[in-house]
């Protein structure tokens, strides 16, 4: 597996990350197989950058986020943050570094303790990490609430008194309290209505600009990700199949799965006529992924052949900064002779069914 882009120094570097969940069967619960939720994922996140991680349900994007936070332990791989391998740290060191890595969850209704006041929720991190105490902590809580657009007097209220958008602001204030440099955002706006979603996205962008935060923005909504992300990684069945600058990826998706995914997004303009690549069938089970390229059974690339079912496509740089995993999309390091040896009959050809016309 080729590693993702190199210079400058990344804040977070994920290398060949794997998370397999065992499938237990029989009365003694012996593992009879594994669900390959994350299957060899590598990427970097640079300081003050937003990396979008997109894909459909079950592609492994949320598991990736959780493994980075070590909310779940990975099966294999490395996660370097600020030069340290997080997966090698003991509990105490990990707790220390959690100050720098925070998380915002999807559901603002279940991610806030209903028995704690908003003030106590935001204050908790300050106290645990010994950043402030007593009156100083209270002042800091008021300041944080103000920064996320909530009134200071809300500190004494409970989460149930707030709307979804306000709760998500509370979640953001809690994450910011310990002054992190990196935040994993797991579907932070998907539970919100359009008008409120726009408020929260703008807030997140303002905070990033003011504090130089890096975000790993995990979402299924491709238009939201295009709006907020600098670079975007597309996942399918536990693997990153394409990774590029947001503008490049949306203008010229190279991997046939990305092409289908982008063309499926409904466009809020009744006058546009668009080419739609309609995928047939469903995502295969990650317990029994297809051989070779995991997307080959549903792929619409005209040069698809037996080689696709035999060769695991490396994530390779097709254009500067634009990485894709497809042996039929030139240029590719998988030689034609090698493809023929694997049963290939069709030469790689450039296939771009959904290239956007320049706006």
């Amino acid at each position, binding site marked *: 597996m080729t590693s993702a882009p190199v210079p400058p120094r990344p804040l977070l570097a994920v290398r060949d990350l794997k998370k397999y969940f065992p499938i237990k069967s029989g009365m003694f619960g012996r593992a009879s197989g594994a669900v390959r939720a994350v299957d060899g994922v590598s990427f970097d996140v640079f300081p003050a950058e937003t990396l979008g991680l997109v894909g459909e349900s079950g592609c492994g994007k949320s598991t990736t986020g959780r493994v980075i936070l070590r909310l779940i332990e990975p099966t294999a791989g490395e996660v370097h943050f600020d030069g340290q391998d997080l997966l090698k740290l003991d509990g105490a060191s990990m707790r220390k570094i959690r100050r720098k890595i925070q998380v915002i969850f999807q559901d603002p209704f279940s991610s806030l303790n209903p028995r704690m006041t908003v003030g106590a929720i935001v204050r908790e991190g300050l106290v645990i990490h010994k950043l402030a105490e007593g009156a100083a902590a209270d002042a800091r809580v008021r300041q944080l609430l103000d920064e996320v657009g909530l009134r200071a007097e809300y500190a004494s209220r409970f989460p149930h008194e707030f709307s979804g958008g306000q709760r998500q602001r509370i979640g953001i204030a809690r994450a910011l309290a310990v002054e992190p440099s990196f935040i994993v955002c797991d579907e932070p706006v998907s539970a919100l209505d359009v*008008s409120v979603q726009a408020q929260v996205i703008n807030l997140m962008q303002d905070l990033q600009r003011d504090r130089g935060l890096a975000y790993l923005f995990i979402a299924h909504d491709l238009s939201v990700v*295009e709006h907020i992300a600098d670079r975007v990684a597309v996942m399918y069945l536990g693997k990153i199949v394409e990774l590029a600058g947001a503008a490049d990826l949306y203008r010229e998706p190279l991997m046939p799965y990305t092409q*289908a995914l982008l063309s499926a997004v409904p466009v809020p303009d009744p006058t546009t006529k668009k080419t739609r690549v309609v*995928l047939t069938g469903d995502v295969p089970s990650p317990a029994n992924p297809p051989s070779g390229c995991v997307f080959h059974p549903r792929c619409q690339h005209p040069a698809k052949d037996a080689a696709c079912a035999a060769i695991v496509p490396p994530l390779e740089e097709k254009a500067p900064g634009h990485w894709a995993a497809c042996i039929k999309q030139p240029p590719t390091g998988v030689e034609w002779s090698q493809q023929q040896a694997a049963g290939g009959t069709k030469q790689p050809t450039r296939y771009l069914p959904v290239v956007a016309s320049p706006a």
Partner: protein
Amino acid sequence: MAESSRPAATAASSAPLLSVRDLRTYFYTENGVAKSVNGVSFDVGAGETVGLVGESGCGKSVTALSLLRLIRPPGRIEAGSKILFDGRDLITIDESAMRAVRGARIAMVFQEPMTALNPVFTVGDQIAEVVRVHGDGGRRDAWDRAVKMLETVGIASPAQRANDYPHQLSGGMRQRVVIAMALVMNPALVIADEPTTALDVTIQAQILELLRDLQQRLGTSILLITHDLGVVAETVSRVIVMYGGEVVEEASVNELFSAAHHPYTEGLLNAMPRVGHERERLATIPGTVPPPTSWPSGCRFHDRCPYAWERCVSEHPPLYQIGAGHISRCHLAAEPERRLKAHEPFATKASP
């Protein structure tokens, strides 16, 4: 309020299939009366696809449930509401007559296919049950119709799949089953309440394609309820926008997306991030939707509106005729010069 004297939004050439007039559905809660649907009127023509859009709490789903009289206490459809369908007022017919309408003449497709299906019966049984309940033929015949319907909605090897239980099918397949169940009696109207919200975007594309195709082949009218303006733009011919339990704007889909009149519609359209657009700052609508127990005075949108003036606080706006088939509940129609005077239009308003 004489809502029945609403301006005509549809070119009233022939009698519409469904005419809703002054529909009011209130919930009598401990916190007061929630006027979730508060004087809603609209038409759906035969073979037409109409979108009903709005955010959480605008009353769109309660409107849908009211059309089938599926409102449970403490909710109640208020006297004076009219739902004219098939030449009858569905509000006044008795429960057994209503049962003959539900599923046979008006069918519903719900958001969550897993909860809409019974986990302990095969999907074939569940579709066949609809046929038997409506008294069309015997067991064998009902089963055959179920299998045929599964084929119509694009399920491969329908005879085998009919013997599957819901958990054996994927989310997209389940939604196809729910659609098959809705269409098996060949209803005149299908109400689809967020039919693709729980689905992934590639599956959503398949289901919307299917709905469009079935609508053309079978001539069924569809009332599509959704919060997703992208889905609306690609699926319907006419759009009704709801806010605060009322219709605030109605227009053809092209007109609505090119020349929205109501500031709420304008705000919604501007707040959406769009694929292939410049990464400018998103416009926002300040504040949140008020609770249905305490709608603001005057125009229900006035406290979030960038154009609002005194009249909006004191006087509840009627539905103004904006153009052919285009109505809007906004005083800007009477005083259009106010739109230019807005000191803070949406685009520049920073988030609070």
